[in-house]
């Protein structure tokens, strides 16, 4: 974990109530896809934990939905403004768990945390199939970016307004992958874990206090006992998760 002052490079609406925020500053604490940052917003006591979508030596970007007052205020921030952020939180996905072929299944904003994972999987020569599920065409994010990484991408929408009509589980193949990764709404991830043919990892979400493991405000039940979503997770192995 590092704490730093980050300059806003871009804060733009990219889909329905969905924003892409790009920040410049130290990214040395970001190691794995699925890790998150915790951003302070003026006027709010707690920070807002957001998955780091992608990063390089210059900075990182996150995707967020305006669901409450904090994210509403965040969406009004302009390029050049400074945000205080804790960076490099959580464990992230284990790309090395996949031997040859990975299946990545995401729902809605869950398309964000797996992006760097897919980049790393592709870079290490693994075959990656990505299934992105959204409510409708207005919600679609990161489709082209995933394609540009070299992954096979399938978009599913519940209303059929983009890609194929149906749920992400409808698009899951019967085989052809040796490990899976998922992020999205809890019922979706549960269904993905049940349908998957092999081991995998899912990224859980919980209302957090500190985001760095000291307050025990986001504890969840696992088959290995109580675990902090922020510090022991947010990524957990399929077999450890208690749904």
């Amino acid at each position, binding site marked *: 974990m590092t704490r730093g002052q980050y300059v806003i490079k871009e804060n733009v609406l990219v889909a329905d109530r969905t924003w892409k925020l790009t920040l410049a500053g130290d990214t040395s604490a970001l190691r794995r896809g699925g890790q998150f940052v915790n951003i302070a917003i003026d006027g709010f006591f707690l920070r807002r934990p957001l998955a780091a979508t992608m990063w390089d030596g210059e900075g990182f970007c996150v995707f967020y939905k305006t669901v409450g007052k904090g994210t509403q205020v965040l969406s009004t921030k302009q390029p050049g403004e400074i945000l205080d952020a804790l960076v490099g939180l959580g464990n992230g996905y284990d790309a090395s768990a996949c031997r040859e072929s990975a299946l990545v299944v995401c729902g809605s904003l869950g398309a964000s945390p797996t992006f760097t994972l897919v980049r790393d999987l592709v870079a290490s020569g693994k075959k990656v199939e990505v299934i992105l599920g959204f409510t409708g065409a207005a919600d679609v994010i990161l489709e082209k970016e995933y394609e540009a990484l070299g992954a096979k991408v399938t978009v599913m929408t519940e209303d059929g307004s983009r890609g194929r009509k149906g749920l992400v589980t409808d698009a899951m193949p019967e085989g052809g992958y040796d490990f899976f990764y998922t992020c999205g709404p809890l019922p979706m991830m549960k269904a993905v874990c049940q349908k998957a043919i092999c081991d995998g990892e899912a990224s859980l979400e919980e*209302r957090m206090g*500190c985001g760095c493991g*000291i307050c*025990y405000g986001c504890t969840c039940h696992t088959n290995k006992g109580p675990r902090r979503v922020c510090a022991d997770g947010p990524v957990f192995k399929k077999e450890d998760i208690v749904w």
Partner: protein
Amino acid sequence: MVTEVSLCGVSLKNPVIPASGTFGFGTEMAGVYDLNLLGGISMKGTTLQARYGNECPRIAECPSGLINSVGLQNLGIDVLVREKLPGLRKIYGGCIIANISGFSIDEYVKCCAAADAAPQTDIIEVNISCPNVHGGGLAFGTSEAAAAEVTAAVKAVCRKPVFVKLSPNVTDIAAIARACENAGADGLTLINTILGMRIDIRRRRPVVANKYGGFSGRAVLPIALRMVNQVAHACSIPVIGCGGVSSAEDVVEMMMAGATAVQVGAENLRNPYVCKEIVEKLPALMQELGIENINEIIRTI
């Protein structure tokens, strides 16, 4: 310039202590910064048996603070003594405060005796003020007789200084404080969190799963200052001031109100580096205020 303070003979290089429940067992912060700059560390509240605590959501944001209902999640006193205390001592040379909670006098006695016997423990903090567990904690902190009974029972089995952590959810905190002092408490820590609630108006249900939780954060500083001041003038044992502290200025204010040392709680959740920043800022602030020895400001109001 002197920042060193003493709590019943235990020396702290400065008065800054992360409060119990907001800094894990201390070991979680290893590597984030050098903990040895802290005056003391109050470890996460521990009970006789391991506890999962309450279901999530355990956190609700509030203006200038938050409500928590963690519910004393901990691994039990045996693990504290066997793993957590030695683990913290390996990376930290300052004052270690073991924070103990219970559901019966017998539990308090067993836990405090075990914590007292651990060589790493410097001070025992007896939490009789947790608002997040049913049938324990707070039940002992809202009655003079019960507070005195716990204090006397614990004192009978401890050789190390015993600080009783008081609840603000009472009519007359000075009366509870005097009851603890008369029962033998070596010191007092106050305040624990204030019982509160938030409601999700869209889902029409409380935000935290346990319905109510403990409110803390910057908003409670004035309440904590008033209570510390009342208790410091009602008792002659040292007080650790806690509640809403987020800056070196707040530390000075708390000490002027009557605190010998100061705990920083909820602010750690917002800024895990805050205790380090306060410690680093304190000498410059003392210079600005013309304070040569920090002990000279204690209970001056």
